[in-house]
């Protein structure tokens, strides 16, 4: 099954890095879902949940302000404030 590489960065350090099959986040104008081999994307995130689906289960956080970038099957989430659910 195709996967994508996902990293979640915060000012305090790297909160997550690994392979994922699906990433879902709250953009400023609605929710976005990223599947493997998504086209390059840059979007601003609002306040809401961030979910990363991996082979061994889901990880989820709450984000307040940040950005999401997709490039070369790699998703980078940059979160200003992040709390793990």
């Amino acid at each position, binding site marked *: 099954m195709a996967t994508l590489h996902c*990293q979640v*960065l*915060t*000012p*305090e*350090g*790297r909160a997550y890095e690994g392979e994922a099959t699906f990433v879902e986040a709250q*953009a*400023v*104008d609605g929710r*976005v879902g990223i599947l493997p081999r998504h*086209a*390059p*994307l*840059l*979007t*601003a995130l609002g306040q809401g949940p961030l979910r990363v689906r991996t082979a061994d289960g889901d990880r989820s956080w709450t984000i307040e*302000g*940040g*950005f999401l*970038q997709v*490039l*070369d099957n790699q998703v*980078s989430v*940059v979160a*200003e*404030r992040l709390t793990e659910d």
Partner: protein
Amino acid sequence: MATARELKNKIRSVSNTKKITRTMEMISTAKSRVCQKRIEAVQPYGDKLGEMLRDLGRAASDPEQASEYPLLRSPEKIRKEAMIVITANRGLCGGYNTNVLKLAERRIRRLADEGTTCEIHMIGKKGAARFRYLGREVTQGYFEIDDKPTYAQAEAIAQPLLDRYAAGELDAVSIVVCHYESASRQVPVERPLLPLGGGDEAEGESSGGEFILEPDPGTILSHLLPVSLKTRFFQSLVEAAACEQIARRVAMKNATDNAEEMSHSYKQLYNRTRQATITQEILEVIGGSQGMS
């Protein structure tokens, strides 16, 4: 010549001081290691933001748009600058505070020559005390930042300044801080934060992708700019904390070494005095017995 008792007191006092400085050295060593880790932790975050900003810069580089984002404005004349000076709350760290403050002083004088008024935002009690002594006005002091600055603290200080820059109240914002070059080298530097220099964004690699920008370049930029500026300020705070601990470690190491040396020479002096007293007493006993016979 000091008596044996006086010397003994001195030895005791020096070795007590040595215990304290050695402990402080060890604490600073541990803390500086934590601070260095934090510098590394924020690095990828800052790099990613910079990369996004460059990607976006290409998409939204036409000057028409610049006027729409107050943070992108570039004043023709800098009339008022807010200078954030980052010092420590505590002393006993060698030239750390002094060096930063000297650089700040130089910058203030230079700006005054250019006709720019300067607003001082002082972080750290040491800097505030020094400027009070010099009779310089400190617009605002922030003393709650310790060796573990948080992003929330950085935001609380930077956000009002960004807002005031956007509103046209300020024409420039700069930071004077100790720059962490490596574990063995830290130098005070001036870091202009605003207005955004053209060169600053151009340097470094952008990821080179053609992006779908959601919802549109402008909206992302209006979110990204303040975040990236606050992050730069946060990075400065983290660096300053590391530099402070390293400076203290070095200062305390020197103090410990000096105490060691001092206690050694006092011990020598003490032994010599003790020996002289004994010799003196023996001579007296011999002299006495000869007088009797």
